[in-house]
């Protein structure tokens, strides 16, 4: 067991709204008319389609091969026919389109043959390759490819499994840990084997007693029966409910006391953190041979049948909402939680690997924000900020487009958790300002990079032209000298000829 818990700075305690969706067990969904599977479903690169229109595919069959080292594969979420490969709106605040493979289900749900790995004999590289080939990414929402994280060669002491689920309304990890605790624990132990950690800590907020009980039972069962873990412990730790306890840095701080500095990652301090959903997906992929084809999504808010659904990837959000019965008055739909999520610009966007929650928002549940008032520098945002930065300073800099200064005040340490905007008495949408400033800074940096590249290329271009000119001049000079030399030689020869008698004519041959 761990001796004591630590505390992270800042944070808030919003109404949790977990009861609405946590009561019912995870339910399956009927297949829709078509599934739109985006080729890019991770934060670091996408997949290359390996099927063509008209192909018959089986559930779990790879339809997009991982592109490069950082890409992750995608798989057919059900059996059916590839009906189109085109561009479709993606689940992104921009509402932009991205390449996607459309599958028309045949309704048979026929799986491709499962090929589980023999965990006892498989090497670390084989397991990591399988994680990549199974398309596993961080399921907490950031969708960072798991094979990159686990494949790092840092020395890991502690594996943290993130079951905190601190964001209000979302309950998908809660239900997952209640119903599939054994698989989560098994997946956690596989991850532990891969990164070589000596202990596993599962952090769960104290508002999920059922999940804590189920996970504790599964952990005990695992430690009683399996002796393959080399004496490594798995501990289920109850952490106090305080948003954002489920942030990676915050949870690592609470469980281990390590405060990860800016510009460093947890791995530098011997800690690695995976979401409970990711651990579950790893278990399904390696032990059962099932690629990632579905995820658990919380549908809540103003709907008739809120709850958690096991949704095939590529399922249109509109169909999912129709299934749950949207009540009248819903004026927007959030993807992700109310704190960090975003309003979906188009409802035909599909569910992807990072979509943990869909909230049907109505003015009754989520009243429109009161008008923004001037900042009075009360400092409440700075006290609430878990990243330890000063939102009110950053607000001034972002607002006046003073991006150099915003960067100096560490705007990129902001995790966009929304605590500052939540406590702001002037109702300033601080996170919106920070997102704006961050994307402007990124664009500007990209422009500068392109400019310095163009400068270098232009300088080389001018240098090359001058060099070519000089070379040509040198060549011409050499040629001229040669001609002059041969001419003068010829002239000399002529002069000599006139003095000396001509040579006898050659006999005809």
């Amino acid at each position: 067991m761990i001796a004591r818990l630590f505390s992270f700075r800042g944070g808030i305690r919003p109404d949790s709204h977990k009861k609405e969706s946590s009561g019912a067990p995870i339910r399956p969904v009927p297949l829709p008319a078509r599934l739109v599977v985006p080729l890019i479903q991770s934060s670091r690169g996408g997949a290359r389609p390996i099927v063509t229109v008209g192909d018959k595919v089986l559930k779990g069959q790879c339809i997009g091969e991982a592109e490069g080292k950082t890409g992750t594969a995608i798989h057919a979420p059900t059996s059916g026919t590839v009906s189109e490969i085109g561009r479709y709106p993606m689940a992104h605040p921009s509402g932009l389109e991205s390449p996607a493979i459309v599958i028309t289900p045949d309704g048979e749900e026929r799986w491709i043959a499962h090929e589980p790995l023999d965990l006892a004999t498989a090497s670390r590289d084989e397991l990591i390759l399988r994680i990549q080939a199974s398309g596993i990414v961080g399921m907490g929402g950031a969708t960072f490819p798991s094979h990159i994280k686990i494949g790092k060669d840092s020395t890991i002491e502690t594996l943290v499994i993130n079951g905190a689920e601190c964001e209000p309304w979302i309950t998908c990890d809660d239900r997952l840990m209640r119903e599939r605790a054994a698989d989560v624990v098994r997946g956690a132990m596989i991850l532990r084997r891969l990164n070589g950690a000596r202990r596993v800590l599962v952090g769960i907020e104290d508002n999920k007693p059922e999940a804590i009980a189920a996970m504790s039972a599964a952990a005990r069962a695992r430690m009683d029966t399996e002796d393959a873990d080399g004496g490594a412990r798995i501990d289920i730790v109850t952490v106090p409910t305080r948003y954002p306890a489920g942030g990676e840095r915050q949870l690592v701080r609470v469980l281990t006391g390590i405060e990860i500095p800016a510009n460093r990652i947890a791995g530098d301090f011997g800690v690695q953190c995976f979401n409970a959903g990711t651990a579950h997906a790893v278990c399904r992929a390696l032990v059962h041979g099932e690629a990632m084809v579905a995820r658990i999504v919380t549908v809540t808010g103003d709907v008739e049948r809120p709850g958690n659904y096991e949704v095939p990837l590529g399922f249109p959000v509109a169909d999912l909402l129709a299934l749950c019965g949207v009540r009248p008055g819903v004026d927007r739909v959030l993807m992700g939680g109310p704190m960090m999520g975003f309003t979906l610009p188009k409802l035909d966007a599909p569910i992807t690997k990072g979509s943990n929650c869909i909230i049907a928002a109505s003015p009754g549940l989520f009243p429109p924000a009161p008008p923004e008032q001037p900042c009075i520098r009360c400092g409440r945002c700075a006290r609430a900020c878990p990243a330890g930065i000063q939102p009110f300073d950053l607000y001034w800099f972002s607002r006046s487009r003073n991006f150099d200064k915003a960067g100096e005040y560490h705007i990129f340490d902001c995790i966009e958790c929304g605590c500052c905007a939540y406590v702001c008495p002037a109702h300033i949408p601080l996170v919106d300002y920070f997102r704006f400033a961050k994307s402007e800074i990124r664009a500007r940096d990209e422009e500068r990079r392109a400019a310095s590249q163009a400068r270098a290329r232009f300088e080389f271009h001018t240098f090359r032209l001058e060099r070519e000119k000089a070379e040509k001049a040198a060549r011409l000079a050499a040629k001229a000298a040669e001609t002059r030399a041969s001419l003068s030689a010829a002239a000399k020869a002529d002069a000599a000829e006139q003095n000396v008698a001509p040579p006898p004519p050659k006999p005809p041959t």
Partner: protein
Amino acid sequence: MLPPILTALLIMTGIALALGAALGYAAVHFKVEGNPLVEQIDAILPQTQCGQCGYPGCKPYAEAIASGEAETNLCTPGGDDGARTLAELLGREFKPLAAGAVVEKPKAVALIDEASCIGCTLCIQACPVDAIVGAARQMHTVVSKLCTGCELCLPPCPVDCIALVEEPRTPQNWKWKYPATGLRVVA
């Protein structure tokens, strides 16, 4: 003992010689290569190398500004913002771009219609950043990552097969908007 006037003269001469030697040494050994102001101006210019300012590239324009022979408001891709930054750096008065010159264009790159290209290499010679590859009587193509969108390849093309296409919007280059402040209803 020397008279005080001579002592003073000797001391002053000694100091003058020492300082002169130090300055002479510094002038030789700490000589600044080129004009540092040119580098600073060049850093502000957008490096499209388009020549719209009338100089054959950004560096030559920077040199012209530094020597005082060019105005700061000739760079069209840099826009009024660029002209303002330049004016601030040089302590000159800000002049907006000439009327009609300000065209805020979205970033675009050249694209060769490969079916029509006859392989004349004229565009390759025109490109200031060597972003076009190809050979005589072979199809040419633009390396779009390196293209600055300067449009210098458009006029030389004898078959008009080069067009500028806007950079597509992707989640990577998509930007969050400036937060809109709702109007307050006062009555």
